[in-house]
């Protein structure tokens, strides 16, 4: 069957996330960005909704089963509130979800219960590298296996909460294939930059440069154990995470612009009554819908092990990257001069919107 409506359970979750997004994230997004800080209380409140917890089976301390479609819906809704806050709330997922998907039994038992027990705690992952042709399938950080030991070499960028993280899932190139490696915080040769990353947007989210200088870890710390894992499905999940968050950011900008256009007057009418503005809004709404459905379909494919899931996730992500830039740019444009002023919300959304082109690896479904 074809069907285009979240089920009851999903709708309840969306409503819960929406409340948090609207009342907590959206209300504080500007202040957090300007202060370059996300209050722990805010993060914990989002954590308590239990998105990750609901993705993890009871046997590992959770209370559900991972469903990519559900996570796509929730992630869009949360990112509608604020991107930095959403990425912070879900940073532990960057570590836990790949373990859930590809980890060895031992790794699942060892990490999953302690990550989701109690309050939000810093576990993170490092994928991005500081180069113009960054490609998750051709990483410059390398891994070498020497009997029981793995040596990691390279530098990772934009790693959220790296400074306080207990463990970092580092992606590196092992003989041409991307693999994940669990690196404990006290590893010799691991260094985290003193300074936070300074980016065009997302300033509330603490992100760091992570250096790996011949970091040695046991073979058992390779994701999936000694035999490793398939990176493709993790990558697809990362792409869909990014695409869903892009939908939320776009929706936020669209809603702000729509409401503003209905209030702002020019030449005796609301500017929304001018076709030039009305058509922009119509196209924004249409593109959001287009990429939303593409993302939903890819998530459904992920949940149902469809053959072409990797291409589907790639297309959804690629499309969402363009869509969110177009929509958030127009959000600023519709506000006119006021859109350029940081007191108004749309300029941050545009700065964050551009980020999706290079921030693959910061959200996962």
């Amino acid at each position, binding site marked *: 069957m*074809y069907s*285009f*409506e979240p089920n009851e359970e999903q709708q309840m979750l969306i409503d819960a996330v929406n409340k948090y997004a609207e009342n907590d994230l959206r209300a504080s997004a500007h202040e957090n960005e300007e202060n370059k800080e996300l209050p722990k209380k805010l993060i914990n409140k989002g954590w308590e909704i239990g998105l990750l917890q609901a993705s993890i089976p009871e046997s590992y301390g959770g209370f559900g089963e991972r469903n990519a479609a559900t996570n796509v819906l929730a992630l869009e809704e949360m990112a509608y509130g604020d991107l930095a806050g959403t990425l912070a709330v879900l940073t532990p997922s960057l570590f836990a979800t790949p373990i859930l998907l590809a980890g060895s039994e031992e790794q699942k038992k060892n990490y999953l219960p302690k990550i989701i027990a109690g309050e939000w705690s810093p576990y993170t992952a490092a994928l991005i590298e500081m180069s113009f042709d960054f490609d998750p399938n051709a990483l410059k950080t390398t891994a070498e296996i020497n009997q029981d030991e793995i040596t990691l070499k390279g530098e990772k960028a934009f790693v959220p909460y790296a400074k306080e993280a207990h463990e970092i899932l580092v992606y590196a190139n092992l003989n041409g294939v991307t693999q994940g490696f669990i690196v404990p915080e006290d590893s010799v040769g691991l260094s985290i930059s003193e300074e936070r990353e300074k980016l065009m947007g997302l300033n509330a989210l603490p992100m760091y440069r992570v250096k790996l200088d011949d970091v040695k870890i046991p073979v058992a710390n390779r994701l999936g154990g000694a035999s490793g894992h398939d990176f493709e499905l993790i990558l697809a999940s990362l792409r869909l995470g990014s695409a869903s968050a892009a939908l939320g950011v776009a929706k936020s900008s669209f809603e702000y612009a729509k409401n503003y256009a209905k209030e702002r007057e020019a030449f005796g009418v609301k500017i929304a009554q001018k076709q030039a503005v009305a*058509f922009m809004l*119509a196209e924004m*709404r249409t593109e959001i819908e*287009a990429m939303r*459905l593409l993302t939903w379909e890819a998530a459904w494919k992920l949940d149902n092990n469809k053959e072409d899931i990797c291409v589907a996730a790639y297309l959804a992500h690629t499309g969402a990257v363009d869509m969110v830039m177009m929509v958030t740019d127009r959000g600023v444009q519709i506000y006119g001069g006021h859109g350029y002023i940081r007191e108004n919300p749309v300029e941050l959304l545009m700065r964050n919107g551009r980020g999706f082109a290079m921030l693959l690896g910061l959200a996962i479904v």
Partner: protein
Amino acid sequence: MTIEFEAPKPIANQQVMLKTVAENMMRPISREFDENEHDIPWSYVEFMHMAMKAAGGGGGLTVTEKPQEGDEKRPPIGYQKLATQIEMLAWGDVGMYLITPGGGLGAAAVAAAGTPEQKEKFLTRFNSDIPTYAAMCMTEPGAGSDTSAIRTRAVLDEKTNEWVINGEKIFVTGGDKSFTEYEKLGKGFIVVWASIDPTAGRAGMRAFVVESGTAGVKINKLEKKMGIRVSDTAAISLVDVRVPFENMLGSATVEKNNTGFRGAMATFDATRPLVAASGLGVARAALEFLKEKLEENGVKIHYGLPRQKLSNIEREVIDMEIMLKSAWLMTLKAVWMADNKKSNALESSMSKVKAGDVTTKITQKAVEILGPIGYSREFLLEKWMRDAKITDIYEGTGQINRLVVARQILGYSGKELR
């Protein structure tokens, strides 16, 4: 409800069959009937009529759905079936899809605004043994998207109890096959929109069934078009055309809530995603052809690479796939809503906006990328580009549909957002 993207079995099965029709009955004669404008491809017309009749779908390509019983009970999928049928036939040849025998928009108007007696009288003919057509006459030289500007008048002659219609209609899709009496076709009709009270604007608009061969109706010309040349587009004049009183659809009193006109507009909500589907069939044909030619020439598309590492052609093809897939999902959603009796005015118009954009862009880009191969009439690609353009024009131009989308999302009336 849930989120699901698995084609239901009846749709999956139907697509296999229709693909064979598209490949064997349509594609081989596509070029011939593009070059010989206004010739009728009887092989296709007669085959389709027979096939649809055998499948129990009298009345042409319409929503046909048998009631579900017992274990097989599931939500209706009639519109979804229709949209996927149309997409596949348009993939074969969109012009030829348009002349698939049946009641088309004319019958749709009767179905939307007619009384049970009228439905009985006018719609049963499509089940006969020979192909039969009906068409809708809405557009006039001075009234396109603004249908309230229609000038055609209908006046009641109380002595004879007949309506007397005068006016001029253009862009009547299928007008010739519906009105002209062909030996191989059954007796069709045209549905003419006219005003019974010009001071009342939309409230005065009514639809009249005019049987083929009625005196005073003249087909002035068949338009020569950029594309969809196999589909006849008629210009029709009506001079003192007399039709029986009961050929007017709906009620004769001029009320504020004109159900007749609203019926016609509701027809558009239902048909917009279908037009979107027809355009997307053409777009898919063009994209498949492009990919095939690229592959023949050793160009590989590297899915999964970051943008910075893709060649320009790869980027174009990937963007085209994103456009096509997402537009198709929007179309599916709009018809799924129609099947589930959800109001879909927004989704229906959005799907048409998107399909109009996507269909023109993909076909135009494909011609550009393939250069001489794209431009040559040796291949069908150039034809598909010409055929595709109509998607962004008929059933409401891209601009009109943007207006509808904007009014929906802003909660504005036609007065608030003109």
